[in-house]
């Protein structure tokens, strides 16, 4: 008897009233959030100080004259009007777009093919993975030097090969179209290892059973790839496309070390345009305004990628 009563009492004590329950819940959530913020704090202190503040500062400076060497002077939309009437900017946007489309298509195609091969033929594949990755270790200065040598008129590999095949040698960095293509090739050369390993990792996450099932159903290699592999890879492809857009619209290193925008502005990209305004011409306002334009373009393209690649995934799910 006694024990039953005390047990009920104990139960009563344990049971919370609705208000008590809500309060406890709030306390728990509060503590949980606090803990989460503690986990975030070490990252967000440098993040705010070294990324967010400089970024917002840059946007503010796009409405000012000066602000780095001398005090900022608010000039409204003057910088924006200047860059709007600058034909080099329209050229730079066009060059960047052409470059990005070519570079992304080429590097993705090659990387997916190589990843499929590495996935199918695994014996000794480590050697290839390592070799493909080596260009990524080279500093930009070195990439510039190497490609200068590769495209050299007299002893560059490309021209020696053309010569051996009986074609005329090409003035590669002297022709706008070829110079931009050289930037594309240099960046593809640099990035191929990364993307190959990326797609390889993605492929190895595709469950074998699904592919086997498809095989039993009589799906051929190409079909299997299109119907099974690609849809399963869609989220990874979305991530890849977004990252590639962000990285390639900011192409600068190779332009800087190889062509400096030439010949006649045909390899002038957006970041090169920004760099010149910021550090060569001391027109910081115009540089930052162009940077905001670049940011807007990348944002828009990212949104489009999500719409195109992300939505279909939902439908299929």
């Amino acid at each position: 008897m006694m024990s039953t009563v005390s047990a009920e009492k104990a139960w009563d004590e344990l049971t919370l009233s609705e208000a008590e329950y809500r309060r406890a819940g709030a306390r728990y959530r509060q503590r949980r959030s606090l803990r989460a913020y503690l986990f975030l704090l070490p990252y967000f202190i440098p993040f705010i100080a070294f990324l967010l503040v400089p970024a917002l500062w840059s946007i503010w400076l796009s409405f000012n004259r000066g602000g780095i060497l001398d005090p900022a002077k608010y000039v409204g939309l003057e910088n924006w009007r200047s860059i709007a009437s600058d034909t080099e900017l329209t050229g730079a946007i066009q060059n960047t777009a052409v470059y990005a489309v070519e570079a992304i298509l080429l590097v993705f195609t090659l990387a997916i093919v190589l990843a499929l091969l590495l996935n199918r033929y695994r014996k000794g594949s480590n050697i290839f993975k390592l070799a493909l990755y080596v260009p990524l270790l080279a500093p930009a200065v070195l990439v510039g030097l190497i490609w200068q040598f590769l495209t050299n008129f007299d002893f560059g590999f490309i021209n020696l090969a053309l010569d051996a095949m009986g074609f005329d040698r090409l003035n590669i960095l002297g022709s706008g179209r070829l110079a931009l293509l050289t930037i594309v090739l240099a960046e593809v050369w640099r990035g191929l290892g990364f993307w190959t390993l990326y797609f390889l990792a993605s492929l190895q996450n595709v469950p074998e059973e699904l592919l086997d099932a498809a095989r039993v159903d009589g799906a051929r290699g190409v079909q299997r790839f299109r119907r099974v592999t690609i849809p399963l890879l869609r989220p990874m492809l979305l991530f890849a496309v977004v990252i590639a857009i962000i990285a390639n619209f900011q192409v600068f290193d190779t332009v800087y070390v190889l062509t400096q925008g030439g010949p006649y502005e045909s390899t002038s990209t957006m970041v090169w345009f920004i760099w010149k305004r910021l550090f060569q011409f001391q027109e910081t306002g115009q540089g930052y305004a162009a940077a905001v334009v670049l940011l807007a373009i990348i944002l828009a393209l990212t949104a489009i990628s999500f719409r195109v690649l992300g939505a279909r995934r939902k439908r299929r799910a």
Partner: protein
Amino acid sequence: MDESVDRNQDALPADGDQPGESRREFLKKAAVVGLSLPAAGALVSSASARPSMLIRDRARSRYEGVTLQFAKAPFGTDEKDVIAKLLKPFTAKTGIKVQHTVVPWNTEGASYATNYAGPHPYDVSYQTSTDLTGLGTKGVLEVLNNSKWLYSPAYKGTAAKFIPNTIKKSIYQGKLYGLPCIIGGTVMFYNKDLLDKAGVTKIPTNTTELAAAAQKVSSAPNVWGFQVPMTDKDFTWYFHYHAIHNLGGDIISKMRATQVSVDLILKDKVQPPVGQYDREAGVALFKGGRIAFLHDEPLRLTVFRSEGLPFKWDFVNPVGAPNGKRTIFSTTGHWVMASKSANKAAAWELVKFLSSPAFANEFGAHYGWAPVRSDVNTAKGDAQVARVNKYVLKGWDGLPTGPKMAQLTSVYGQAIEAAATGSKSVADAMAKAQADGTRILKS
């Protein structure tokens, strides 16, 4: 007979006309004597040694412990060592230590734009006239043409020794932001063996003769007649301004001068197409014996000599316009002081020393630069450098400085590049340059 001869004679060290300087000379000697004496016999001459030691100590104590930050984009890979060697007597005399930073040319803009924005910028640095006024008008450089520095009573006599034109062309809206130290001149190197082989006996003096001589050489396989930087990245404007100047200096002469340069490539085909060899590749090509005439800067001299090129070579003044002038029209280099410098007095000591014969004679001689002061002589009995100096002093005229110089010269460079690649006709390219230039000046 020749104006330059007179000026060259002026350039010989004029000794003892400055009482202030000769007194310092005397004190320096006295100090050296004073230093050596204690070892010889302190007992005998302690009385005579003491006063000079005292003076020396006072000069030192003023700057004792001061270290100046000094930055420069290099004229050669050995420049840091050359400067360190030349600064030794300066540090010994004043006690000022100098910390030298090599700023790479291709990132110069970014390095200075950020450095001068900080609280402790380089106390002294080297700026070309294209960047000088851009930085100066932002207020980060000390204005020098006032009674505190250049026209201070102690320096007035020395200030008069600067070639007046170099000071004049470096002043913008009444302000001089740097002390001229180098005149930017260009020269035309030639490969004597190649010319002999092609039967060219007379070194061309104008563009028409150059085209003809270059054509004779170019008929041989794998050899080009002429090479000059033709892209904005290689500062093509720097190698073409004198041509405009020779023709008159207006928009029509801009077009005519550019047409001549473009024809050498596109019509006469005596120069490699734009982009096939950039500036450095062109120089390497010359070193390899495959270019007859190379238009570049005199500082190649040191390199060509030290590497010992496998053929006979020499150089001349860049060619002039047919029936026209033959001048050198270019920029200047300057020593500048940061307005935020915490040690301006010490910085001024350094700037003064860098401009003085004690530094500039040797430094200019090493890199083949012409002097900007009548008491500086960079030839040191070297016949080739003496000739560079003669050319430069005879024919130099300065490009006036301004805050938008870097952008304007780039606009002109782009126009030359557009025309020389055949992307645009000379007329179209120059019309665009004119429009862009006007827009930039208005903003």
